Each structure stands twice: as C-alpha cells, then as structure tokens.
C-alpha cells in the first residue's frame, strides 16, 4: 500500500478536489438522489483510478484497502453498490461476500468482484458465494463503468 492512496481513502475533506462533473451528469444525479459505492481494493492506484472514474460518473466513492473490517463498514454505509477485490489483506473477498449475504438486509446489494485470477473455478466459487458480477484484471475503464451502470440499473428495477 503506497502513501499516495492512503490520504485519498476517506475522501471527505481531501486536499485534491473531485473532478468537475459535466452539467448533464449533475442534473441526473440530483434526480437520482446520489449514488453511493463502497470500494474495497488494496491496490492504491487502482482505487484512485476507479474513484476518479466513478466520481465523474456521479457516484460517491468510499474506499478502503483492508478486508477485516469491510463487512461492518459496508453495513454502516448502506451503499447502492459494492466493488470488491478477491485477494485482500485481512479477509478475502469471498469471505466478505459470504458474510454480507448472511445478513437479511444485504441480500439484494449488487456486488462487483475484481480479481487477477480469471479461472473458471474462482468464478464458480464467487458466484456461489453471492457475487453479482465478476471482472478480471486487467479490465478497461469502459468495462468498469458499464458493469457499474448495469448493476445499478438492475438493482433499481428489482
């Protein structure tokens, strides 16, 4: 974990301001009453890139690098979406999903899992644990944005 990401992790009151959002996005956001995502990823520069992308797309991004307290954090934050790395220090992404799904109020929460191991067995395990969608590193920014928008739209319908 580098220092560059550490001061960005809790973004409220950060020294670097969020990127400017286009007018149209801002208006859309007002309509939707703010979208909130919790990102659990131990790679600070991935966190920073995703934070930038999603903030610009109208999301409030809450990022953490550590797995052990993740379940509590997510339950307290009550986000619209969770993005989770598979290999995390403290607790694996799979365990976090399993624990989340054990809570009755966390059943419908969309979870997007990021992983460097794209093997079939991992994917099956992740799906069994309750992951909504699966994304293999290295992904493109467009893929992340599409996945996040799709998951949010689906959750809104259901």
């Amino acid at each position, binding site marked *: 974990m*580098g220092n*560059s990401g550490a001061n960005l992790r809790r973004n409220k009151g950060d020294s*670097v*301001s969020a*990127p*400017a959002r286009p007018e149209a996005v801002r208006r859309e956001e007002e309509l939707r009453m703010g979208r909130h995502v919790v990102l659990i990823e131990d*790679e600070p*520069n*991935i966190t*920073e*890139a*995703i934070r*930038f*992308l999603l903030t610009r797309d109208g999301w409030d991004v809450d990022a953490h690098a550590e797995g052990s307290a993740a379940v509590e954090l997510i339950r307290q934050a009550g986000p619209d979406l969770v993005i989770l790395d598979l*290999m995390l220090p403290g607790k694996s992404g799979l365990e976090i999903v399993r624990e989340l799904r054990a809570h009755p109020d966390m059943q419908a929460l969309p979870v997007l899992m*990021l992983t*460097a*191991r794209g*093997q079939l*067995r991992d994917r099956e395990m992740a799906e069994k644990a309750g992951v909504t969608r699966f994304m293999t*590193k*290295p*992904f*493109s*920014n467009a893929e*992340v944005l599409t996945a996040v928008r799709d998951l949010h739209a689906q959750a809104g319908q259901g």
Partner: protein
Amino acid sequence: MARDTLTGSRIRERRLILGLRQAELARQAGISASYLNLIEHNRRRIGGKLLVDIAAVLGVEPSMLSEGAEAALISTLREAAADSGVPVAELDRVDEFAGRFPGWAEVLAACHRRIATLEQMVETLSDRLTHDPNLAASVHEVLSTAAAIRSTASILAEPGELEPQWRDRFHKNLNEDSLRLAESSRALVSFLDERDTDSPRRGMPQEEAEDYFQSQGFHFPALEDGQLGIADMMAEVPVELSAAARSLVQVALEQYLSDARALPMEPLAAEIASEGIDPVGLARRFGCGLPAVLRRLAVLPEAVLGREAGLVICDASGTLLFRKPVTGFAMPRFGASCPLWPLYTALVHPHVPVRRHVVQQGRNAAAFECMAVAWPQEQPDFGSDPVYRAVMLILPSGQATQDAQPVGASCRICPRRGCPARREPSILKEQF
C-alpha cells in the same frame, strides 16, 4: 512363450465377430464341427494347412491367428479410438489393423501415448496456477499492476481537460506502477525459468522412470554383486531424465538393492531350479517378507526364473507406482486399472497372500497366474494409521483354468457385460 496355445481362442473370437456359425466354419475348412470346437477351446493344437485354410475363411493372415497382435498395442489403439471422440466404424477390426499394418499401428499408438502425456502435463501446469501460492501471488501482482496502469493511462489519454492536480497525480502513479510492473514481471519470469531448467519435460516422471527400467531390462547385475553403489548407478542414468524421474529411479533402485540383498542371486537361482516358483517357500527359506519375494521374482532375468513375469505395485489409493509389463497383460497407461485385479483384493486384505488365476478380457483372452500381497510401507506406530502398498506378480499361464476369474485392463476398453465392478461404460459394442 504361451502364445501358440491361444490360437483356438483367436479363431473363436474372429468367427464370432464375423457372425459365422461353428458348423459353417468347420464345413468350409473341411473338418468336423466337434473337432473345430476342440480347437477353439485350445484342446487341440493347430498349424500347417488347416491353420491356413481357417485363416482364409476368416479373411485374416494365418500369423494373426497363431501370434495375435500385441495385446498392449491393441489396447492402446482402443484407448486412442475412445479418446478421439469420433465414432470409429471399424473398432471390431482393430487387431486386423494392427496385424496388417504393424508399423502404422505403432505410429498411431505412439501418437496417442504422446497426446495423453501432454494432456497430463497441461493439467499439471494449469493446476499449478491454482495450487502454487507463490505463482498465484506473482501473477496477481503482475495483473493488478497492469490493471492500475491500464485504468490510469486511459484516463490520461481521454480527450478533454483534466485538472492539473489529477493529471500530476496520475502521472506519478503511472511512473510508480510501471516500475513495479517491470520488477514483478521480471520476478515472474525468473520464477518460471527456475522451475524449468532441471527438466526438459519429455513426459511424466513416472513414464520416464519406467522407460529407463525397461531399457535396462529391469535387471542391474552390477548393483547386485556390489560392483556399483546406488550413487554410481544414478551417475549412469541418462542426463535427459528430469529431476522428478531421477528421484523415482533412485527410490526404485534402493528397493531393488534391498530385495536383492534379502534374496541373493545364486542361492535364489538354485532354489528356483530345484523347487520351482514357490514365493511363500522362498520367503521362509530366506527369512524375508512375501512382498520382497514377489518384487524380486519379477525382476529376475527370464533365464533364471524360467518364464516371463510382470509386476505392478500400487499405493493405498490404487494408483500404480511401478509397472513391469508382461506379454498379453494390458495395463492402462493413465487412469485407474481394473478393480478386479487380485492386486486390489490384496490391498483390502493386508498381509493375506492372494493367489488367483485370471483371464484378461479382450481380443486375446490371455490367462495369468497372479500372486499379490499388501504390506505397510513403514512400521505402523501407535497413534498413526498404517499406509499400505500392494504388489502383484503376474505369470502368464497359457491355458485358462476352470476357476479363472475374468479381469480387464480399464473399463473403457473392456468388453465384459454385466460386470459389477464397472465404473464407466465401455466403448466396445459387442461382447467377444
């Protein structure tokens, strides 16, 4: 040795495949049906003109009836047909193929074995990514860094304004990550390189070790008479052998040496010459265990034992650890063997000597006398479960006895119907 005694069985098999009645074949060959019946049950020797005539009626070369095609080759060809996935129309003519085109049949069999070896290797390698934590961590590091670089770079590459603070920050991240990627990819490459240097990967280690023993005829006189030690023997093992195969060879040689010390060549040869092959008698006479006797007998030169002998050793999972092939007894190259082998009967009754006459199902119904026993690999201790191994000596016996039990090689190529031990369906449609 016992080959020509099975000519009758081959005539019968061939006749049944053609759907020819016994009486009809007898008529065309100019003999009585009852005489043909005796021949088909190997009760009358057959040769000369009659063999030629019968072969002509059956549409095969006479040598195919008198010698048969090599059983191992046939079973490999059947495996090849099974694994090819395409329906093979002439499966019932496999030994005709092997008999008429032995060279091509060998080529096909060799290709099949090579494919099986490579498939095993691919499986091992892909398992490695899943099970080797160092490799998985190394790959994770490379891919994560690549993901960070890709995201960051494409943000920077987007058209339009980016606030200077963000731009500077992303440039800095990109620089850091590219350094990390250079480092982690170098680490990954050296990790892979290191693993590969000691083995040219010609095949599975067990196969390499087996080829080595085969090339030495399973007999090491210099080791037995003390001229060379294990270390000297290992120095003479071909350099192409991978490190894994070498360690298997060394273990097998150590076993060989300890068996040879328990049963030295001269007194053993004298005992066999006077008493015949009597494993339990030999165990008593030399004061050693039955497993050592069975292993020792199998690796004796044919001149000493007076006949050909095969050997298989398995561990408690049933996996074959050591195989000395013997004419006519098909042993699967990969995968599980026939659960009806006396080897496995011995495995579930440790220490109890098991002797069975068996007939291996297949085109050449060949008969064997098998002697097997299971023993604990190490002295069992209080508080730990014993780990057993089983050994089986295979002696071709030519004539099938009344009490002979049917066994196979492996289910996929076994024609036996209604077998209670069947694990998966056979690819063979008809029962021979």
